[in-house]
């Protein structure tokens, strides 16, 4: 739990020496509380205060990074239970499972697919991050060979899954430089696994049967010096796994239970044999608190919705997604197609584009950068007004693409039509519908006539 400015102030020397850069210790304490200053700036802070402050300033849920030299994924580090309270920071990593009993050719084709399944949306790249290699063979050499193959044939962050520390050690020999996640330390093998994690500097999963036992196990592992942990509560039924995710998220945030202050790993691949249901479980875990989600396989029809859901849930509620400014062709527009202009709030763009598409009237959609604000808000904020729209229209080059020079503006920006006619000589400004839903009817009837 972070300390307040006053609590921090009590631990400072109260000399007001000013060497930290601000004139008083109280002001420095306030900056510390706001996360705007570093304690190391204070030259005369006591060791005791240092310890208390660093303990208090550690994040309640530790961020853990998996992977190096290829795809990497940072999970954990969350500070709230609900995204509207601040935001969810680190989207869960999506992992594809590979058994070490799988023939090489099949491993290769799975890895090739893993590489291909990348999507572009609102300027962001969406893709899975991890491959989990599971030691089903029971053979350490075979396991190491499979891990080596994954390392060689893909840039995925790797999860090494074996209950046998010797097998993990063998696989680490071939891929430790990729900073894999080690799965898993249990009550039985905790000492050996902790040793491997420390030697290799790799993060380690703590797996126990239930949250209570998990608390004991992580306490032991952190005492042994392993700081980068990921938690598996062992639950493989939907209801229990859901409950465990919530408890593990809320215990460190609301009850300061440090022993659970780590990201989690979940296994839809071990909860059902139906790939469609597996996707449903994954979608639940995206919203409810998983750190890493391991899937038996990746298919575009389930991965795409999952990745987009993940992007949506992990969008910063204070900062709307925006589309790039420019001309978007919808259908196959020609020199007599309608020209519409709208704002670059991603949702506005998707909806308007969708409605134009459903009208079957090929069109040019001009998207003006409004810093992610919707039409009405951008208009009110002066970012979607004649002075701003006109230069964009001129610069866009749309005048060369159409003969008619008619510009359809959103109904909510109707007040700008006069200003735009002044600023855009030669253009006729047409006020379109206020609601996107009325665009198809408008394009089909009003525009056509």
């Amino acid at each position: 739990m972070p300390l307040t400015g006053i609590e921090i102030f009590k631990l400072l020397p109260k000399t007001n020496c000013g060497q930290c850069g601000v004139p008083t210790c109280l002001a420095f304490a306030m900056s510390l509380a706001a996360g705007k200053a570093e304690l190391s700036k204070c030259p005369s802070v006591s060791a005791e205060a240092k310890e208390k402050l660093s303990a208090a300033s550690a994040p309640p849920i530790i961020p853990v990074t998996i992977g190096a030299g290829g795809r990497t994924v940072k999970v954990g580090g969350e500070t709230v239970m609900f995204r509207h309270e601040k935001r969810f920071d680190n989207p869960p990593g999506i992992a594809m499972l590979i058994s070490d009993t799988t023939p090489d050719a099949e491993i290769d084709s799975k890895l090739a697919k893993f590489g291909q399944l990348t999507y572009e949306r609102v300027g962001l790249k969406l893709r899975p991050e991890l491959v989990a290699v599971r030691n089903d063979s029971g053979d350490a050499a075979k396991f190491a060979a499979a891990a080596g193959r994954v390392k060689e044939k893909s840039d995925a962050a790797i999860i090494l899954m074996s209950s046998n520390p010797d097998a993990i050690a063998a696989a680490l020999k071939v891929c430790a430089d990729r900073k894999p996640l080690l799965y898993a330390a249990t009550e039985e093998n905790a000492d050996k696994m902790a040793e491997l994690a420390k030697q290799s500097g790799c993060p380690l999963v703590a797996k126990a049967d239930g949250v209570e036992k998990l608390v004991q196990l992580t306490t032991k592992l952190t005492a042994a010096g392993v700081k980068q942990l990921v938690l598996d509560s062992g639950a493989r039924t939907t209801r229990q796994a859901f409950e465990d995710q919530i408890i593990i998220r809320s215990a460190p945030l609301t009850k300061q239970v440090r022993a659970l202050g780590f990201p989690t790993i979940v296994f839809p691949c071990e909860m059902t044999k139906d790939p469609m249901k597996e996707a449903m479980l994954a979608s639940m875990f995206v919203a409810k608190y998983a750190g890493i989600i391991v899937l038996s396989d990746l298919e575009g029809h389930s991965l795409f919705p999952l990745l987009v859901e993940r992007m949506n849930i992990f969008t910063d509620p204070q900062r709307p997604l925006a589309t790039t400014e420019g001309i978007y062709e919808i259908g196959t527009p020609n020199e007599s197609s309608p020209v519409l202009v709208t704002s670059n709030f991603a949702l506005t763009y998707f909806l308007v584009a969708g409605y134009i598409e459903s009208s079957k009237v090929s069109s040019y959609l001009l998207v003006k950068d409004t810093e992610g604000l919707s039409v009405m808000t951008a208009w009110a904020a002066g970012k979607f007004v004649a002075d701003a729209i006109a230069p964009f229209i001129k610069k866009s080059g749309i005048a060369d693409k159409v003969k008619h020079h008619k510009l359809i503006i959103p109904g909510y920006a109707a007040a700008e039509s006069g200003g735009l006619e002044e600023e855009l000589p030669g253009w006729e400004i047409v006020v379109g519908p206020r609601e996107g839903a009325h665009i198809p009817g408008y394009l089909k009837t009003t525009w056509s006539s």
Partner: protein
Amino acid sequence: MTFARPKTVYSGKIKEMKLGTGPKAVTVGGETSYPFYLFEGEMPHLPRIAMEIFDSPPAEWAPAALEPFEGVTDDPVAWAKKCINDYKAEMICLQLVGTDPNGLNKGAEETAQLVKKVADAIDVPLIVWGTANHEKDTEVLRRVAEVCDGKRLILGPVEEGDHKKIGASAIGYKHTVAASTPIDINLAKQLNILLGNLGVSDDSLIIDPTVSAIGYGIEYAYSVMERIRMAALTQQDAKLQFPIICNLAKEVWKTKEAKAGTEDPRMGDPKKRGILLEAMTAMCMLLAGGDVLVMRHPDAIKLVREMIADLTAKQ
């Protein structure tokens, strides 16, 4: 080392609402915890799924969405019966797409008679949904309310601009209303207050927060619903303690991604993609507090039903 499990402190409860009449009537609401937080409270009535049908043959549905209803989409009564008999629908949502003034612009009388025919032919609760055009919805839904007197329909969307007239008809003919606002907790509360002042009783109102599909702003609906539940359950905000309806299928299936074919191999199988877009959207809505989900594809419904069953399974 003892470990004290965290527990949310709840001070409120969602109101219960009975939909429909007779042995197949459905009750929703009554929750005393966040959705599926059964380790903290109760969900006495599980979320329900209403299968949607159109009042006129759907024009631009994806083949995957049409296939399960082949042969019945030009007959709403047969369509509703197929949903109930073949796909075990517990509720039906009749979308009055054909009344859209920008579309077929079907009249109030014709539509009301159609609604009555459907209502008389089925024994499960019926939701009747307009086109969010205030004048047209007022005209159509008022006539529907009258013709279907006593059927305890859910009439929606009832918005601030048409709440008085539709609300009054709902009260007069004993129906319930879906109070619809554009993804905003304050507007939702405001409309609930207005409807309450009008005389809509607490057991006859369900909140429509306006939902959207994965990739089309679902996060806004998700957070507004979470905030509504938080206010209702932990901040004693009585005017938000109502069940929530999510009219989601039409939002999902109108998207480019749900309609696309096999052009892009990275997008996988079109049918499975459409089903999962719908089912995963529904999953998010359930986790945020949805009590009634309006859905389309039988396979998506099956997946969501399984998740509801698993999340509430006996331990």
